């Protein structure tokens, strides 16, 4: 194969994430052009903390979507683990370390329960995670009937601050998750199996792909990543709160971020890197409207319209269809 066609294939395969990246670059350029002095290290760190939080939840959402499922409980798991972190992650260093392990284990366990019900209960993921989401939110309320709690300030300063005075630590955390977590994972047998199950569960089954294990692991990883997000949430807020609206918002935004990042809701394609870019796009919308002095009342409408426009980019494929049957 010539080098040129290899490039062409890589381009086609990554069209979604690249389009999202282009949108993000454009928005970021607009932001810089309008507000060149705003790029102080402190502002970038704050922006990065907020964006990385959504990016991690979007990463969590990605794997179930790739297997042609959906996880409507990611926001609830995030809130639940955030509440847990606000009770466990403080005190002496060993207590903090143990707390982190327990919080992440709690997230992974919540995800594993989702996966087990989806795989062994043979129920639709969307409805399973809807119901378990209610249960997890109940647990969050049990842990924190009223907002409060305490989180280790040392850890909070370290993780929401900067490395070497320049790089936001949350961006480093995100890079670590991608390079040490996602990149190796998608090359494993189970990682490939997640894609295979999403493309065609039947064909995957007939080819001897470990589809049940793949789905189980996909939801467990989703739970684990939501746990990471919950930990980060508590570190940013320095307390825990069982907020239903927040959980719902993060769940819905995670789906939007995944779609903007080029992962198909019909499964089988996409990846976490695209979702991260999608999350950054979503987060930049608000900041962009702010620097352009959009009236506060118009902001929600603009945000909605831009979200709708972003998901409509995918509709361009309708124009290329030659045979109408390809539509279905």
């Amino acid at each position, binding site marked *: 194969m010539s080098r040129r066609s290899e490039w062409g294939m890589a381009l086609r395969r990554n069209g979604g994430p690249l389009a999202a990246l282009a949108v993000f670059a454009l928005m970021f350029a607009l932001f810089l052009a309008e507000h060149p002095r705003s790029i102080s290290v402190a502002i970038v760190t704050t922006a990065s903390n907020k964006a990385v939080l959504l990016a991690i939840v979007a990463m969590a959402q990605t794997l179930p979507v790739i297997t042609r499922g*959906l996880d409507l409980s990611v926001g609830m798991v995030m809130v639940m683990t955030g509440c847990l972190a606000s009770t466990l992650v403080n005190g002496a260093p060993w207590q903090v370390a143990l707390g982190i392990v327990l919080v992440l284990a709690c997230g992974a366990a919540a995800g594993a329960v989702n996966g087990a*019900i989806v795989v062994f*209960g*043979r*129920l*639709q993921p*969307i*409805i*399973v995670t*809807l*119901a*378990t*989401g*209610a*249960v997890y*939110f*109940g*647990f*969050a*309320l*049990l842990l924190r*009937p009223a907002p409060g709690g305490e989180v280790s300030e040392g850890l909070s300063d370290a993780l929401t601050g900067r490395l070497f005075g320049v790089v936001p630590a949350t961006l480093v955390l995100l890079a670590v998750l991608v390079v040490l977590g996602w990149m190796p994972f998608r090359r494993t047998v189970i990682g490939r199996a997640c894609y295979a199950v999403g493309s065609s*569960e*039947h064909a995957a*089954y007939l080819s001897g792909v470990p*589809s049940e294990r793949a789905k189980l692991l996909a939801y467990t990883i989703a739970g684990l990543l939501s746990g990471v997000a919950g930990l980060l949430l508590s570190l940013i807020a320095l307390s825990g709160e069982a907020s239903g*609206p927040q959980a*719902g918002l993060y769940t*819905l935004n995670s*789906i*939007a971020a995944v*779609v903007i990042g080029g992962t198909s*809701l*019909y499964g089988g394609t996409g990846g976490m890197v695209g979702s991260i870019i999608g999350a950054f796009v979503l987060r930049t919308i608000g900041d962009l409207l702010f620097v352009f002095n959009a009236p506060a*009342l*118009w*902001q*929600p*409408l*603009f*945000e*909605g*319209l831009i*979200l*709708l426009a972003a*998901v*409509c980019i*995918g*509709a361009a*494929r*309708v124009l290329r269809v030659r045979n*109408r*049957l390809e*539509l*279905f």
Partner: protein
Amino acid sequence: MGASELIAAQPSAGVAKGPVRRLLLSPPAVVGLCCLLLLLAGSAVNRNFLMPTYLLQQLQIAAFLGLAAAGLMTVILLGHIDLSVPWTITTGAMMAAAAGATYGPAWAIPAGLLCGALVGLVNGLGVALLRIPSMIFTLGANAVLQGLMVLYTGGHAPQHAATPLMHDLAVGRTVGVPNAVLAWAAVSVLVHLLLARTVAGRYVYVMGNSERAAYLSGVRTAQMTVVCFIACGMLAALSGVLLAGYSGNAYQAMGDPYLLPAIAAVVLGGTNILGGRGSYLGTVAGVVFIVLLQSMLAVLQMPEAGRQIIYGALILAMLLLYGRSAKVR
């Protein structure tokens, strides 16, 4: 029993043997039985749970959820979903109250329904013509509606009160039966007849099973999709109009608590979330079950945490009983 009901009432594959057993194991029957069990269990604690006043009051509250769920079900049967229901409810309510105050009370309800129909039209066009997955398109539509309503109200509580007719429709009674229940019953009969007894209704099921096959058989699939989304939008708006009448006026985010229970009610009633299978009777049973469950947990003064856990766990347990899909082989 016609062929239509046989398809519609089929639970999961491989359970049913004879016709009687099939009927007893059908989701509407199971959910109905669960409602009865719930009432009996509740009456052991509090005698009031069996009083007609309490039951009628619950049905009245169920009407708001029931109307939204009826519309949502038609869309789910197609294999789509409408996540814009929450702000369609709110938009319907706010616009009805505003039109009533601006153009005269007679315009209130038509204006609310018209807004719902417009939302449904946009959703339907986006899904049917642009071929954007309904889950993400309606999510965007929900955000846009929220933006429009924030812009319209200035972010405050809307000033216009519900018109007397809206109030009467929501809380008034005709020969002892709440008007809201009558409205829900009328809509229910209509939806049931449309789905089970008309050609268009059959097309909805066909499209839910295979849109491609429906298209090749000459069904105008795009048109059907748009019509179903319009029905969903109008019913959500109607639910919002009644809700505004019930509480005296419209308020921000009034529709938010209705989306997830509506989806849960439709699925509990035996409708396949991927479309193509389900009976409307099941949806009604699902709505009644969810409203009873929520109300009883509230009356028993269960803290919110316990309510959420029991609510989620019960839905899962019931679905594990009868909602399982066939094994991949």
